[in-house]
């Protein structure tokens, strides 16, 4: 992105009442171009927001961060960005001071680096306890002050690198702090093209605009992360394995180094690692289903477990039809799914039927391109931690299918529901444990009251607001646990509740869990009525339909359901209900 483009992005109009995204940019240099690019990248990610970026004093990164921690300003911030450069650790590592590069100065420089990093890390850690922080370590070459040739990594070089790594490791332990991976930065911004010494000396700004753009993009991607994809559909022949199953036979398809098919083995182990992280993996292949079944049954050397591949649509029909059935089984949209196939024609055919799907051609003859593809996919599926729900997602879908319990069965029979031995668990601890509640809110599209997304800071602010309640809903039945599948949150008012956010995983549809949620809110909160801040979105038809089933007509905006209306419309519920944390249960009158 050119600077002019960045400025023009910032000029594009936003509504006068647009929500604000307040970011603190902690750096020791003149922030001017980085601030401009950062705001532009934030605007690209959140076009309906107005981003404000504030910064501190020139040449005092540690002091700026320490002052931020102590100030009231931090309460109004949504995120903090910390960009460390060498002069922030010791001015002699930059070019704007001439305090001496004599060999006898070097131990003092090293001591100063340790001291500065300790100050910065302590302040960043404290900021990270309040708001999300994104941090980048020095991305420029340090000044050539050591007597050793630059090509040699001497003791000073490694001492400083070790201190930086130790600092980054310490910060990475804080779940609200993200550290930019310097190796990834290297791959998109050549190190030799990053420094602008002329600008450093003239204006106190250290980076070329090209590097500024890359750095700002990386920082913005952590402040407003894209929603990770949820599922991957793979082809079999010449993708999951080398060879055509119908020609090579069950024992003839390969994925090992010895058979010159290693890259397919690498792809298999990649898929298993995705599956272990809770990503759904399906198969769409034009193949003989019986032969494919035999591979998954007999070939014990497969690096992806057969049980991790669900559903497996192996038939002679169009790939797009197989993909349609897989999406239906997963009950997720095509925009949350990647499709990988060695045939460009099949990728195009699937894309024509499912324009939102992320289609990728598996470059079977170019191992380097496969590695690039894996990096790209890792970026699309990447997550910061693996939750308990991630570990059981695929298994629960598969188990339900095996037991004939279709995910989209709106007509689940009374007998089926009554015999499900279901338990719904409401945990009203505020703030909720772990990051699952916010993750669910920000990734759920279908059963989502209004599509409202929160930054972490916005969510924390909401939880602290007067009368705020939040219930995390967990479900299990005789088919196994679904884990934490729903969140309902809002504000307690006089004899009423206002539900501002309500989401439920699509895996939990057709279990009357939404009815159980409302019954819980009416009975435990003592509310006579509940106001739902419903707003239609392109995807939240299930919420509209549910509210319509209670109200008798589909709502067009916020609506109120009173207790009598709910009781009259509520079908029989068979769940056992378990409630946790009564001290923070929702209450229909404001707390002091």
């Amino acid at each position: 992105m050119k600077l002019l483009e960045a400025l023009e992005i910032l000029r594009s109009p936003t509504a006068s009442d647009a929500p604000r995204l307040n970011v603190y940019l902690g750096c020791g240099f003149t922030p001017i171009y980085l601030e401009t690019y950062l705001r532009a990248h934030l605007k690209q990610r959140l076009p309906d927001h107005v981003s404000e970026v504030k910064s501190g004093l020139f040449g005092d990164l540690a002091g700026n961060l320490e002052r931020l921690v102590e100030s009231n300003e931090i309460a109004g911030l949504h995120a903090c960005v910390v960009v460390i450069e060498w002069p922030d650790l010791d001015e002699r590592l930059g070019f704007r001071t001439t305090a001496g590069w004599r060999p006898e100065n070097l131990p003092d420089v090293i001591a100063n680096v340790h001291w500065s990093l300790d100050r910065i890390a302590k302040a960043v850690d404290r900021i990270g306890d309040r708001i999300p922080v994104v941090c980048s370590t020095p991305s420029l070459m340090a000044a050539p002050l050591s007597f050793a040739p630059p090509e040699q990594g001497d003791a000073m070089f490694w001492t400083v690198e070790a201190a930086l790594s130790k600092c980054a490791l310490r910060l990475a332990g804080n779940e609200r702090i993200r550290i930019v991976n310097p190796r990834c930065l290297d791959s998109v911004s050549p190190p030799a093209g990053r420094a602008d010494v002329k600008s450093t000396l003239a204006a106190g700004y250290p980076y070329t605009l090209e590097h500024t753009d890359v750095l700002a993009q990386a920082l913005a991607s952590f402040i407003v992360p894209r929603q990770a994809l949820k599922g991957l559909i793979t082809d079999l022949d010449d993708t999951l394995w080398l060879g055509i199953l119908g020609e090579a036979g069950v024992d003839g398809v390969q994925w090992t180094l010895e058979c010159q098919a290693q890259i397919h083995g690498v792809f298999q182990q990649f898929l298993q690692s995705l599956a272990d992280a809770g990503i759904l993996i399906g198969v769409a292949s034009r193949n003989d289903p019986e032969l494919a079944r035999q591979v998954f049954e007999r070939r014990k050397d497969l690096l992806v477990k057969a049980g991790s591949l669900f559903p497996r649509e192996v038939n002679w029909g169009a790939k797009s039809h197989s993909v349609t059935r897989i999406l239906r089984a997963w009950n997720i949209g095509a925009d949350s799914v990647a499709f990988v196939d060695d045939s460009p024609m099949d990728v195009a055919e699937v894309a024509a039927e499912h324009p939102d799907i992320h289609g990728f051609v598996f470059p079977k003859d170019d191992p380097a391109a496969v590695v690039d593809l894996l990096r790209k996919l890792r970026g699309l599926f990447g997550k910061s931690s693996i939750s308990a729900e991630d570990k059981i997602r695929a298994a629960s879908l598969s188990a339900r299918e095996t037991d004939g319990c279709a995910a989209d069965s709106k007509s689940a029979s009374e007998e089926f529901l009554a015999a499900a031995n279901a338990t719904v668990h409401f945990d009203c601890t505020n703030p909720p444990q772990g990051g699952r509640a916010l993750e669910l809110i920000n990734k759920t599209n279908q059963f989502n009251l209004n599509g409202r997304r929160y930054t972490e800071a916005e969510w924390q602010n909401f939880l602290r607001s007067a009368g705020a309640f939040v219930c995390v809903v967990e479900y299990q039945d005789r088919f196994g646990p679904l884990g934490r599948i729903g969140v309902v949150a809002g504000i307690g008012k006089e004899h009423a509740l206002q539900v501002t956010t309500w989401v439920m995983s699509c895996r939990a549809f057709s279990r009357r869990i939404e009815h159980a949620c409302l019954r819980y809110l009416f009975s435990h909160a003592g509310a006579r009525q509940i106001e739902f801040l419903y707003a239609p979105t392109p995807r939240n038809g299930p919420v509209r339909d549910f509210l319509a089933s209670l109200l008798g007509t589909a709502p067009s905006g916020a609506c109120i359901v009173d207790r009598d209306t709910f009781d009259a419309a509520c079908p029989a519920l068979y769940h056992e209900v378990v409630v946790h944390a009564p001290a923070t249960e929702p209450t229909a009158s404001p707390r002091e």
Partner: protein
Amino acid sequence: MSDVDTKLLRCFQAVFPALTEEQIRTAVRGNTPQWDSLASLLLARTIEESFGLEADLELMNHLESFDALRAFVAERVGA
């Protein structure tokens, strides 16, 4: 309107989004509150980028008015 004029106007509009075209054409650094030192830096870099000029102090010296910059840039790009 010359190519230099059009491109320069675009640079000014990007850096000073609150100014109208007429205000930009008559803008003088001393009587334009938005035209501070940071705006000068942004303007200089957008002009360098748009016209493929090398960053230099001479450009900074002409950051006084739209007219002065137009004349300077036209001379440098041979327009």
